[in-house]
């Protein structure tokens, strides 16, 4: 039984990592209705920039700030060059544009910093920690704490600041928000910048775990089922979705894996998400729109 709980909690903690990527999606989706496939590329880009600076001897905090600045600049650029010309186009078109964006960011990241794997040490021991009879990864606990801090930070940002208010207004009804003088492009730029920040945090954690390498951009594929389960518009949904995916993926790997063969974690989340979709098409926390005709 303890083994089960270990697996479960391990999975839940791994799920937090998925949630971190998914939160970036939710932010952007809420504010601009874009399903941002480039989120993974942004994670890669942030991590790669950070680690390359670090390797060139730049101090940790300076690297962090420089990377953050880069991500903000990138967000502004994206808003200007991609989002603004595509205002009012169908969600599918916007999605495909972010596919293109993902290619560009990946290409630039690798052209700048090379394609080799970089190790990233965040000075957190990955040694298992015995807690109440269960062995848990310290790193995972740290990641969970970071995620929690991030969520608190974001909720402060959105509930206590003017830009947060504007964001919520835009998410609610873009046209009404515009009519009361909220400038959409600014909100978008801010949100993409925040998403860039979230991407940076996720990139550091993922990078520390897997090494900073190209496959980081593929975490986007893990985040998608998370979003489906949690709903595209809810940050708490992203967290819960991540936990569900993480836990069930681990449990399936451990208990189902031996039966049908290993390596099922690639597709299992999707099948799970699909089942969820058929039962609750709008996700756990998403709102289902009434179709007006």
């Amino acid at each position: 039984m303890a083994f089960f709980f270990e697996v479960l909690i391990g999975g839940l903690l791994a799920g937090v990592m998925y949630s971190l990527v998914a939160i970036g999606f939710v932010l952007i989706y809420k504010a601009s209705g874009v399903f941002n496939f480039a989120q993974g590329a942004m994670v890669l880009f942030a991590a790669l920039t950070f680690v390359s600076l670090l390797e060139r001897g730049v101090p940790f905090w300076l690297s962090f700030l420089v990377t953050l600045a880069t991500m903000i600049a990138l967000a502004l650029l994206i808003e200007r060059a991609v989002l603004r010309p595509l205002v009012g186009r169908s969600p599918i078109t916007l999605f495909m544009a972010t596919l293109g964006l993902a290619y560009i960011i990946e290409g630039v990241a690798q052209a700048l910093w090379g394609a080799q794997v970089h190790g990233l040490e965040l000075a957190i021991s990955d040694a298992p920690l015995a807690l109440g009879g269960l062995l848990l990864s310290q790193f995972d606990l740290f990641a969970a704490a970071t995620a929690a801090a991030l969520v608190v930070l974001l909720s402060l940002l959105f509930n206590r600041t003017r830009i947060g208010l504007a964001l919520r207004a835009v998410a609610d009804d873009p046209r009404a928000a515009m009519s009361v003088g909220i400038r959409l492009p600014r909100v978008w730029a801010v949100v993409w910048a925040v998403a860039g920040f979230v991407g940076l945090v996720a990139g550091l954690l993922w990078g520390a775990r897997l090494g900073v390498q190209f496959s980081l951009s593929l975490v986007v594929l893990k985040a998608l089922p998370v979003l489906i389960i949690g709903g595209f518009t809810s940050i708490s949904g992203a967290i819960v979705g991540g936990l569900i995916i993480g836990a069930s993926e681990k449990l399936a790997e451990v208990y189902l894996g031996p039966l049908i063969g290993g390596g099922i974690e690639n597709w299992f989340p999707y099948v799970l998400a699909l089942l969820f979709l058929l039962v609750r098409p709008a996700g756990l926390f998403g709102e289902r729109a009434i179709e007006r005709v």
Partner: protein
Amino acid sequence: MLYREAGQFSVRYADDRRFFRLRQDRLGLAALVLFAFIGVPLLGNDYWFSAILIPFLLLSLAGLGLNLLTGYAGQLSLGSAAFMAVGAFAAYNFELRVAWLPLLASLLLGGLVAALVAVVFGLPSLRIKGFYLLVSTLAAQFFVPWTLTRFSWFSNDSASGVISAPPLLMAGYDFSSPAGRYLLTLAVVSALFWLGANLVRSELGRNWMAVRDMDTAAAVIGIPLLKTKLLAFAISGFYLGVAGSLWAFTYLGTVEPHGFDLNRSFQILFIIIIGGLGSILGNFLGAAFIVLFPVLLSNLAGLLPTGLIDAGQIENLQKMAFGTLIIIFLIKEPEGLARLWQRFRERTRRWPLRH
């Protein structure tokens, strides 16, 4: 400009149903097809057949397969490569296990199996829309290669799931030479394009577009949504399956499941975005672009002094260029190269008048 349209008028509805209403267009197409079947095999060399023409034709076919689903029926899919893989492995197994089956029949059966698999992954499309559907097609994209690798029966217990093409014998002829493989590919692709062009102009094609443009209204006028969408998945799957089996048989000779990964799906999606969503011609234009652009890029890089740009950088450059082009096309010409061509044609038909 080249056209003399006056005097070409329809006296039967069948006149309007032809692919091209104008005689000059029909003659042009006939000349092109004739050239492709007779001129190219005489003029081309092995490099052109194997490295350019065959992949171009097959990517066009795969593009058409995805275009039917995404461009016409409006169902976004990132599982194209998975259906190609199903087609390839199914055709391989038919060829392997049912010895008396002719090659062409194996190809078609491969397509049919892919169609069935596509229907299964298309089933959720009735309840979910837009990028929610991505989940279903991505599930296919991850599940299929896993299955093909996991169960070695599919690859006849070969190491890491690699399969090799059977000898390309048909009616006593050996199509194994590059020119032969080209001709075989061309024949299948031409036939399927003819069928596809008919399809999109038929009732089913209109129903697809109706579902794409506004599915509520489509349901209200009596278009059966489930049947229409599932047929889109099935037919798209069939096209991709045949493209996949030819990919294995006439293009590469040996493939493994991971040859049909997500990047291949993206590639096919880019073909139809650049070529033109909802266009038959666009698939050729997009595929030509995807095939020729890297060749062009590496040739250009070859002109530069050696050592300035290494091979890895060319790949990065290519990625950036594709990404940029996708965005430019979506912004400036969402209907792709086909639309540019169409505009040019309209202009020449009115020339020298402006409108």
